[in-house]
């Protein structure tokens, strides 16, 4: 079977007046269809850069990305990207916000509108569709942001610290919420986070990048004995602590 995402020998160098910075060095991995992958690493290890490259927003200095076996060139409609903040447009209603991607891709057709409305109804936002983002709670806004991404029907979702702007309680709830939506829509997902617990609770496989220049330092398959895991139930599973300790040790965090 062709993997959904193939990352082959990706390297990234930034050039500034003060010199050259190698952000990523020879990163390779593959993601199968339907998998949920977590990427963790110390801050500044280039994990967000890696995601931008997979999103087609940045061109790598070396290496290539393939999406379902086709080499990536620029932005690909098969990929949906979720950023750190929900980035809802405050001057648009929720409905106009979730239509943004379709508008840009000139795909506003009756069928697509129908599908967007189905998504809004299914995930409880239909009654808020004429509200403005400022009138919604943080969790609702995150949902709206996800529906905006899903509206263009990507096969692969990239989540770039997508929950880091939320407070802790909301974040746990939103983790659960978004995870269930992604699973029920049967999407492949790659999530970058600096939060080890979040990564373990959501991913099936986890890659850890080293300090800059970022390389894959560790790959951990996350498996829980229970059926129908959710991010919240995973956090309570006995295996959770083991995974956490293992990754924490490898991450080798020093303050000072």
């Amino acid at each position, binding site marked *: 079977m062709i993997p959904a995402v193939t990352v082959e020998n990706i390297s990234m160098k930034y050039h500034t007046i003060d010199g050259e910075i190698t952000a990523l060095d020879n990163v390779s991995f593959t993601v199968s269809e339907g998998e949920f992958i977590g990427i963790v690493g110390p801050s500044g290890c280039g994990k967000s850069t890696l995601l931008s490259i997979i*999103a*087609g*927003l940045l061109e790598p200095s070396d290496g290539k990305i393939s999406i379902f076996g086709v080499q990536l060139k*620029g*932005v690909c*409609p098969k*990929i*949906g*990207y979720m*950023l*750190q*903040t929900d*980035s809802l*447009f405050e*001057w*648009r209603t929720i409905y106009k916000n979730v239509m*943004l*991607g379709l*508008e*840009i*891709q000139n795909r506003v057709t009756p069928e697509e509108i129908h599908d967007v409305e189905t998504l809004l109804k299914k995930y409880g936002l239909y009654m808020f569709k004429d509200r403005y983002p400022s009138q919604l709670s943080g969790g609702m806004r995150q949902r709206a942001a996800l529906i905006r991404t899903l509206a*263009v029907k990507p096969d692969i979702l990239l989540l770039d610290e997508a929950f880091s702007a939320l407070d802790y309680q909301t974040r746990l709830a939103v983790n659960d919420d978004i995870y269930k939506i992604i699973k029920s829509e049967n999407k492949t997902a790659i999530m970058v986070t600096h939060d080890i617990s979040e990564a373990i609770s959501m991913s099936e496989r986890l890659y850890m990048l080293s300090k800059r220049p970022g390389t894959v330092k560790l790959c951990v398959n996350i498996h829980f004995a229970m059926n129908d895991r959710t991010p919240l139930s995973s956090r309570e599973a006995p295996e959770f602590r083991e995974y956490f300790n293992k990754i924490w040790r490898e991450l080798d965090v020093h303050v000072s």
Partner: protein
Amino acid sequence: MSHEKTSAEQIQYLKKVERQKRIILWLRVLMLVILIAAWEVATRAQWMDSFIFSSPSRILNTLIRLYGDGIIWLHVWTTLWETVIGFLLGTIFGILIAIVLWISETCSKVLEPYLVVANALPKIALGPVFIVWLGAGSFSIIAVAVSVSLIVTVLEVYTGFNEADIEKIRLVKSFGATKKQVLKKVILPSSFPVMMNSLKVNVGLSWVGVIVGEFLVSRAGLGYLIVYGGQVFQLDLVMTSVVILSVLAALMYFGVQLLGKGISSKY
């Protein structure tokens, strides 16, 4: 929340806010009345020379006389249309130039020092140049008005464009947006408050430009009346023109404000 029953404390609070608003309004009106009355009394009692300071009753008389002549409309219209045209040209071209600068980073970098100097330059100094180029008439006056508001608009709106949220730009780019779409979907709507603000500032600047322009060269207009009145020592005429001017400027300002509210409610 509106659907809950309003408590007695809430009603009391709302009443208090309402009362305060009323007090402020009354104080404003009172202040105007006192100023006018004091001015009138001071000139009647000969504490102030009404020949030099004019007086509310003399202003009113002048107003009635000008109105009776029908001559006032010529001056008001001349100044008003020069101001409106100057305002529109300055604002529209200012925003268009800001868009060009945003589209081409090279262009904006090359032009930066020129814009800075042009902004620092007192535009009135260009008045004689415009008169030579465009003739001693309304075109020169409009040119002065445009030169006063144009550069400020460019700088302010361009700064507003660059303050648009980077995350939103990344988001639309991840949907495959072209540069034109980034401009249309993100930059312009998110800079709307900046542009509205710039519009309000330009109302004032256009009046400045037109009046100064009329000081330099004109045969009609409120600026002409002011200069003429000053030269022949008719302070009544000067003061009357200033009063008309403040009413017109205020009306135009509120007009722009209303327009802004109208547009933003349509979003």
